[in-house]
């Protein structure tokens, strides 16, 4: 966990928000201490502290548009949801607008419109980025710019009857990641990582002799790219980008566990030249081990998103196995009782794990 520096609030909006939350918590606790008579500040000291906090909050608010209180946080959440949905709607609108009219245009006009829409929407994003401290409008503009770029390349494929290529995923991924880092947008980072994951998996599939579009029919193609994505936050510091490291970890963990889950039911999809049932059983064991390792790593390094994903997949692996083993043979009350008992056992194990982990303060 990165805490903001003493008076600056760190480099990201998340750091600044944490700093404001700490100030708010301090003020609440100070009132409690004063009420209990444990700590009494002189009026002069109080004025100095309050002035310092007010100045810090004002500066952070102007730089990062942080939320001052709980109500403000709720409104911010609404704005985030609204900006995400608006961005999706705008992107869809651009897509359908072109589809509605492209058949009535000559090839030169089609090409000009597509290239210009990519360039202009990108320039608009740059412009909005300089004027928007909140980030909501930037997110909206960035997603539209990305949609225009995707439309640009994919429509060229349709207009000129080009053989589908995995390289399109690479340039889309590059654009999404560029927008993510330049505008501090986790959503675009996730989109970019998915594109890069698709490209890398297609390449691995091609090296193994598959046509690239079939890479999904051998889920093992995704593993190398997933491991690379997981390695990025260990190799590159993301202190300046709030939540980026966790996005890498989340996409990486999902890209490992989802193919394992698929292969635990679909042995036919594996490269391994074994009986499908042997492959499925092997991947079921790997699924349990990998989810447990993810939970452990998440708890060890304090990565909540990793822990939660690991727990979710562990439960999915466990319940699907229970279903396979007992759904047909066991009375339903006993089946669900067993599920309940398992959930209890998981709670006990996780509680013990939480106790055994060193606290954040002691580990610092």
């Amino acid at each position, binding site marked *: 966990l990165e805490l903001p520096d003493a008076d600056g609030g760190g480099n990201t909006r998340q750091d600044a928000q944490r700093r404001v939350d700490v100030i708010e918590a301090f003020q609440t606790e100070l009132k409690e201490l004063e009420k209990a008579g444990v700590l009494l500040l002189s009026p002069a000291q109080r004025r100095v502290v309050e002035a310092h906090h007010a100045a810090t909050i004002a500066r952070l608010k102007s730089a990062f548009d942080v939320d001052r209180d709980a109500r403000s946080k709720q409104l911010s959440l609404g704005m985030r949801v609204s900006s995400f949905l608006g961005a999706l709607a705008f992107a869809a609108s651009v897509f359908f607008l072109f589809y509605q009219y492209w058949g*009535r245009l000559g090839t030169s006009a089609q090409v000009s419109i597509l*290239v210009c829409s990519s360039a202009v929407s990108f320039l608009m994003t740059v412009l909005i980025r300089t004027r928007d401290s909140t980030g909501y409008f930037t997110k909206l503009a960035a997603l539209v710019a990305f949609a225009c770029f995707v439309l640009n*390349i994919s429509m060229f494929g349709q207009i000129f009857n080009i*053989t589908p290529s995995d390289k399109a995923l690479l340039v889309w991924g590059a654009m999404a990641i560029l927008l993510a880092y330049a505008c501090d947008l986790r959503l675009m980072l996730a989109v970019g990582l998915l594109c890069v994951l698709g490209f890398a998996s297609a390449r691995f599939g091609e090296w193994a002799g598959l046509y690239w579009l079939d890479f999904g029919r051998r889920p093992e193609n995704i593993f190398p790219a997933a491991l690379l994505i997981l390695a990025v936050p260990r190799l590159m510091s993301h202190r300046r980008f709030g939540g980026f490291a966790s996005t890498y970890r989340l996409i990486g963990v999902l890209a490992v566990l989802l193919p394992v889950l698929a292969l635990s039911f679909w042995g036919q999809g594996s490269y391994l030249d074994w009986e499908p049932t042997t492959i499925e059983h092997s991947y079921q064991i790997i699924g349990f081990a990998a989810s447990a390792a993810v939970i452990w790593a998440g708890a060890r390094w304090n990565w909540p998103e990793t822990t939660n994903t690991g727990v979710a997949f562990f439960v999915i692996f466990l319940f699907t196995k229970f279903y396979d083993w007992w759904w047909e043979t066991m009375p339903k009350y006993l089946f669900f009782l067993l599920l309940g008992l398992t959930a209890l056992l998981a709670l006990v194990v996780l509680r013990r794990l939480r106790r055994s982990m060193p606290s954040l303060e002691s580990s610092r």
Partner: protein
Amino acid sequence: MNLRSHRVFLVSGLLLVVVANVAVFLGVRFNRQPPAVSALLLTERELAPTGSWSLSQEDSGLSLRFDVRSLPPESENYDEGWANERGFVWGSAPWLTLEKLRSLGFPLSSGEPTDDDRRRVEKLLPKDVFVVLELNGNSYQRALRDAQDRAVRDEQRAQADPNDKNLAVSARISRESADAEQNQNSRLFCIDADLDPVALSKAYSDRPHYAIVRGTVQPAISQKSGHWRIVGQFFGLRIPEVNVPLTYRPVFGASRRHSYTEAVARGIGGQMASSKEAPRYSVMVAWGRRFEPWIVAASPQAQ
């Protein structure tokens, strides 16, 4: 974001847009450099208007889909194959023998196939290869001859027993099939495949009748009465559709706003001309150095 990183962002983004578009244009230019690798004069029989399944109302574009057929192995045509439980596999082709599949890079054992071989074959995925398309050649003539023979045979059976209604229905269906084969069905057949397009070009040098394009093939299992065997399956073309530029739109309708929806309304899109009608348009399609197609010319055909 400081001024320097702001500039880096701006330049990188625009550079990415420019580089991606230039790369696409260079690829298209390279593909269309004369002379074309292949060129075929197709009609509505081989190229039917199509529309995307979900956007037909919204999509104003028009694409034509190649209708490529694959002749089934001798006496294993579609109807008889199913009727006799011959283990008919869709797209199976007589020329896609085990030897041919091996030469295309599929790891198939040369001895008597075992159950392990079957498991391996079932796991194999389609391969991207070069295929030969034959227009109005021996394969089509054979399909036409088979359909006409079947029609004559069924009509003779129906005449021999005029009280049997089933025979009469079979005779009518067979005659309609033969008429459709004569006037309506595609005459474009996939007849060979190889990993080397140059070798195929040399083997099939009659340009008005053959085209070398990218397609996919795959081994499949054909099973009947508990016995199984490995057959070759032609899956389809890598680029199954060709876009119609605005210049050629009037050929497919008077209005420049002609779209898939309008094509359906006029009875062109999504359905062929009736079996007695002649095709309503002809389109010259070329395949370039990257084996990507484009329309070179299109004209309405006299009714």
